[in-house]
């Protein structure tokens, strides 16, 4: 287990680095389409009827649902269906041939997996998310700062290192140079939030967007500026899309002004 634990961050960092390369290489080609997308968003592009199936990371649920309504309003006769879930699971579905037109991932790595399998074309990063500490409302562990997480008396829940938010949490601990032993490595952000909001743990590490959604139940403790792990959110049209033109128009909506404003309102940061 120790060997694995030591190996994994390296692997994940490497994967992130690779994915970053992919992004930058495809960035130039997609820059033009982003511009065209914002143009089509204003109504001059070709309007295509049809239906879209969009697989998106669970953290995008609220923003994308809103954008889906907007898209249907802008494209009369079109319908948008969403399937939200863990990025890796969605990537598996697409690789296995699930019908989908657009894939929006919370992890560059899973998008890379899909791209390597030839399931998507030219992904583009449309947002980033960053980590934050959340504590129960009454802060039973009196956590004020990231260094408090290393205390033996503080129980901490994070995502498992195999899922993106867990990798990000590891990055946070490394940057802060802390030796944190979490009591639990949860399968996703929602599970971490559950443990924190029920007061079962003193603190958890989640994405700021998730913390924002749960602000009624948890208190956010912002990480210092030099300790930040950000995750890229790439989006792409699938190679098997039955309606690639309409699908690209949805991607354009997300990367355009309307989409970026909605993402910002939800706590996402713009793509670098």
């Amino acid at each position: 287990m120790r060997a694995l634990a030591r190996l994994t961050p390296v692997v994940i960092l490497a994967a992130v680095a690779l994915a970053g390369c992919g992004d930058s290489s495809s960035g130039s080609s997609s820059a033009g389409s982003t511009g065209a997308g914002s143009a089509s968003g204003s109504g001059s592009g070709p309007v295509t009827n049809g239906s879209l199936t969009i697989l998106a990371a669970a953290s995008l649920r609220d923003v994308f649902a809103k954008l889906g309504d907007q898209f249907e309003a802008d494209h009369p006769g079109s319908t948008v269906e969403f399937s939200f879930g863990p990025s890796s699971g969605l990537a598996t579905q697409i690789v296995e041939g699930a019908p989908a037109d657009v894939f929006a991932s919370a992890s560059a790595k899973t998008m890379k997996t899909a791209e390597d399998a030839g399931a998507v074309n030219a992904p583009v990063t449309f947002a980033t998310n960053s980590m934050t500490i959340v504590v129960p409302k009454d802060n039973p562990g009196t956590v004020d700062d990231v260094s408090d997480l290393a205390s033996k008396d503080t129980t901490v829940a994070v995502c498992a290192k195999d899922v993106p938010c867990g990798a990000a949490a590891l990055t946070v601990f490394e940057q802060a140079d802390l030796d944190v032993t979490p009591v639990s490595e949860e399968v996703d952000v929602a599970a971490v939030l559950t443990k924190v909001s029920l007061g079962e743990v003193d603190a958890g590490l989640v994405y700021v967007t998730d913390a924002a959604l749960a602000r009624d139940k948890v208190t956010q403790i912002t990480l210092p500026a030099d300790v930040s792990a950000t995750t890229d959110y790439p989006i792409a049209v699938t190679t098997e899309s039955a309606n690639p033109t309409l699908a690209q128009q949805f991607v354009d909506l997300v990367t355009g002004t309307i989409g970026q404003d909605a993402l910002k309102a939800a706590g996402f940061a713009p793509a670098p």
Partner: protein
Amino acid sequence: MRTPWQLRVPAAVAAAFLVLPLVALLFRVPWLHLPDLFREPIVGEALRLSLLCATIAALLAAVTGIPLAWLLARSTGRLTGLVRALVTVPLVLPPVVGGVALLSAFGRRGLLGKPIDVVFGFSLPFTPFGVIVAETFVALPFLVLTVEGAFRTLDDGYAEAAATLGASPWFAFRRVVLPMMAPALLAGTVLAWARALGEFGATITFAGNSPGRTQTMPLAVYLAMERDPDAASALSLVMLVVCVVVLALLRGRWLTTGSAA
């Protein structure tokens, strides 16, 4: 009686339906990497924890569930139906919801968990005991329903005969009822054990996922899916083999000889 083909065909479909995915799993297993995988301490730890917790959970379920099943099988009161329905609830409850319910009861802030935490400074979540509690919670209904069904088929006459021979109800239960029911009790306990071994949702919600402490095989498999689906297949295979071996041994040694008596 010869088996009519009208039964053979759906039976074959059912068997194939169950076996085919398992066979397909075998094709996915990276056989060449298997030795490397088993050298990972995490696999051994998860397997050991799974077997230990599932076995304790099954025994706990048996010790408390068999008496409950006996009472349910023998009482006819209006409350009995209600209790039986309540006992069945964890069967239909999504396990994750079960886990949240367990947290609400036994968690650090839970109804029962809070006073325990205050007095003893101990809380179940994130400990192997939490795993056992979560697994018992989902396994108990299986045991109660199976065993109650068996108790219902038992002729009251044997317990009556024991009473007329001077046996107290407890003596009669131990020496007459339990031995007669042994095959059914064992079957119910094995079913509970199998259910506990495969438990995922309630465990991860209530006990969390801490390698070596609360990470059981299903949790390890789930997280391995995120990293390396082939490794997940291999881990699944390990569970599969362990389950089949244990069930086959039990069936060969106990279940058949018991029912022949």
